[in-house]
């Protein structure tokens, strides 16, 4: 399993989750867990996803997510989960 974390940060608006999930499903990326908070108008969503069956290389997926986010003035990124484990778990 190739686990990665998708983070979406920016101003809250209608359809953020739908847009990101649609893009992920288009590329055969399975969502394992979602958590989302809105602080004042500031939206942050974190998804744990499995990219093992992803239809495009990781770099391409990252670029498409970033571009999709940019259209809505959101900061969307995907990173391998290991980096967070390394930094926050002994």
């Amino acid at each position, binding site marked *: 399993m190739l686990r990665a*974390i998708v*983070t979406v*940060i920016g101003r809250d608006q209608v359809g953020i989750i739908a847009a990101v999930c649609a893009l992920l499903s288009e590329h055969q990326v399975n969502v394992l*867990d979602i*958590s989302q*908070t809105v602080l004042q108008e500031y939206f*942050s969503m*974190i998804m*744990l996803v499995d990219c093992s069956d992803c239809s495009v290389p*990781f*770099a391409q997926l*990252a670029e498409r997510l970033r571009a999709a986010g940019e259209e809505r003035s959101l900061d969307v*990124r*995907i*990173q*391998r*989960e*290991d*980096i*967070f*484990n*390394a*930094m*926050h*778990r002994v």
Partner: protein
Amino acid sequence: MINTHEILDTIHMIDQEHLDIRTITMGVSLLDCAHPDPKEACRRIYDRICQRAERLVPVGEAIEMEYGIPIVNKRISVTPIALVAGCSETEDYTPFAEAMDRAADACGVNFIGGFSALVHKGFTTGDRRLIRAIPTALAATERVCSSVNVASSKAGINMDAVAAMGRAIKETAALTADAGGMGCAKLVVFANAVEDNPFMAGAFHGVGEAECAIHVGVSGPGVVHHALKKIPGASFDEVAETVKRTAFRITRMGQLVGMEASSRLGVPFGIVDLSLAPTPAVGDSVARILEEMGLEVCGGHGTTAALALLNDAVKKGGVMASSHVGGLSGAFIPVSEDEGMIAAVRSGALSLDKLEAMTCVCSVGLDMIAVPGDTPAETISAIIADEAAVGMVNSKTTAVRIIPAPGKSVGDTVVFGGLLGSAPVMPVHPGSAAVFVSRGGRIPAPLHSLKN
């Protein structure tokens, strides 16, 4: 699953606090590239570097993208060239530097280290030829870095080498005068040089190393600064704990990236260098960390103590986070590469003498310091001798990377650009050391070097 707060914390460190991997450095042994025909030796050197480091940059970029962590530099270090070139029948070692430069260009790395000689006890013929070639080699190449180890705690200080390096630095500055003496920014004079240093300009691949190894240099002064900002007025116990916790996290990331690079490149993992390496960017400064501890300005009284705490806590936090720690490991205090240091020198608060004291408690030495262009070679040699004495007696690495900026005097600024930043020209003491330096010979190793 990792919680939201931790994930956002990491992203904040990368986006706002300049958290990055400063360098992935591939060490490459060139020992078996020696050949009596210098042309053949250069061909072998070029081929060997290109063959080993071909995939270094693409692999580094892939890791950078997948983990979302910037890897600022991908670099190469090689066996000290004096050891390889010594076998060749030639007086001129500049072509060896040119071969390194071409290979670095072909591999897409910005610096290659190892135009080096280890002369702490004495010179071989190859060492002498290499030192003679340093000024022309640094002027003729773009990416080559040079270092010379002139002292060690075991052997003492080779004062003939110290004198020679003062002259080499002056000559390098003269040959690269158009660029503000830029060549000197790529030349380091060491005491107790380490064999697995991933940081430039002092990196070389030591003779005790394997054929090839991956070393990682982490960074993160901004992250430490930010962590300390959250605990104003706290006791030093708490300051040390906070630095340790932060260093642990930064190092874990370095370890992860190093292991990943090593497995993708099929090259053994060497070490993580636990250094806080500043950049000229605002918010990425070691000086500002010291000021956050409560000093009005870096360079005032209390600076050495603050740096001692920082340096020690970084090591303690980092050492458990990595399987192998090495390199220089500590806090760097390069003047031109640190926004806070530059400001402190400009304001007159930070002097060369205070910097010398600071080097007693941190990882390297007088680093990226510009002095007036008319500083005599003997004075530069004497500065080197002082630093080498600090390193020799305290059994630590010290270094001098000094730029006698051609045509500049105190108050002027030399601009190098990029990560090398810009340096205000600092005054040196006017008293001559010419007679002292001209004595030559070797300053004996201290008594406590006899540990067996």
